[in-house]
């Protein structure tokens, strides 16, 4: 373990923790975390992962910063409007912690590139707002045996879980197939209170950090539901579905699929 004097100062509040210490900090500095999306969820997740000293953060996003993003996407600022979100996020991250290696993927994540990108990381944080990416990330992380920290938001409500093959269910155990396009409100129709992704994305960062450190109880087999209006957290047990098309006993999906592009969240489990 070779922390520099500057790293000792920077991470001292981690090192002091009995559950972290210098050994845990080194694990964080050796870790590689992939963020799918640098939007509402990805912004706070990226910032807290970077502040924690995660060694390498990959960011996949094919969007440019729009003024309508700034109500909630805190990795970007006014001067970033029109820039690639990956570039803007990288700039914000390295402004806070220059030690973090940020890898930009300015591509839409799809059946062609997903396996290759995901295989280079230890943990995946899903901050997508659309079904095709969410299902693709679920399937690929099952096949590559990588923990997936899932989060989604809708108006005032959020959902968080951790899918880890072997230890619990996957997203398809809950929702085997995407709903038909048009049956759920699109992102453009669905409003969201700006602070909501801050809460959900921060919980995702906390789960990713715990997974890297190997401490505590991640949300495996548990779906956490957050309601900002009532200011309540609920939790429901979720079980592995033996008939799951991806992680079940006789899987029917064995190759990455590109579903038709549309976005939204599924409600009512």
């Amino acid at each position, binding site marked *: *373990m070779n922390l520099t004097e500057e790293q*000792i100062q920077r991470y*001292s*509040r981690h*090192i*002091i923790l*009995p559950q972290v210490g*210098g050994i845990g900090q080194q694990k964080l500095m050796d870790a590689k975390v992939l963020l799918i999306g640098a939007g509402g969820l990805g912004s706070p997740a990226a910032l807290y992962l970077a502040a924690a000293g995660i060694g390498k953060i990959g960011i996949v996003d094919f969007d440019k910063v729009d003024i309508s993003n700034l109500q909630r996407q805190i990795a970007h600022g006014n001067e970033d409007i029109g820039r690639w979100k990956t570039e803007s996020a990288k700039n914000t991250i390295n402004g806070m912690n220059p030690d973090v290696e940020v890898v930009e993927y300015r591509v839409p994540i799809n059946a062609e590139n997903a396996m290759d990108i995901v295989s280079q990381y230890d943990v995946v944080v899903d901050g997508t707002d659309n079904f095709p990416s969410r299902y693709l990330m679920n399937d690929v992380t099952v096949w590559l045996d990588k923990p997936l920290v899932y989060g989604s938001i809708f108006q005032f409500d959020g959902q968080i879980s951790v899918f880890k093959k072997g230890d619990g269910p996957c997203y398809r155990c809950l929702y085997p197939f995407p709903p038909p396009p048009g049956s759920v409100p699109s992102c453009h129709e669905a409003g969201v209170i700006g602070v909501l992704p801050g809460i959900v994305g921060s919980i995702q960062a906390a789960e990713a950090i715990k997974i890297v450190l190997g401490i505590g109880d991640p949300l495996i087999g548990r779906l956490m539901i957050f309601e900002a209006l009532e200011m309540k957290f609920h939790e429901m047990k979720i079980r592995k579905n033996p008939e799951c098309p991806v992680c079940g006993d006789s899987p029917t999906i064995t190759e990455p699929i590109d579903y038709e592009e549309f976005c939204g969240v599924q409600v009512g489990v």
Partner: protein
Amino acid sequence: MTEIQIDQELDIRGEVCPFTFVKSKLALESMDSAKVLRIITDYEPATDNVPRSMQAEGHEVISIADNNDGEWTIVVRKK
């Protein structure tokens, strides 16, 4: 009184809290179990804080001594 064998020494003179504990903890982490660390500090509050935090993490605080020259010596055995 039997002489305690010191395995490693750490000079944290000039450091204040929380870095007195942070650096002591980092030193202990790099040592094997049951080995003994002697810490030299010139920051008096560390003589309370460092042993308390060490004990909280399960290590044995063997002694805390005032060297009477503005410096203190803390001896800890790693759990």
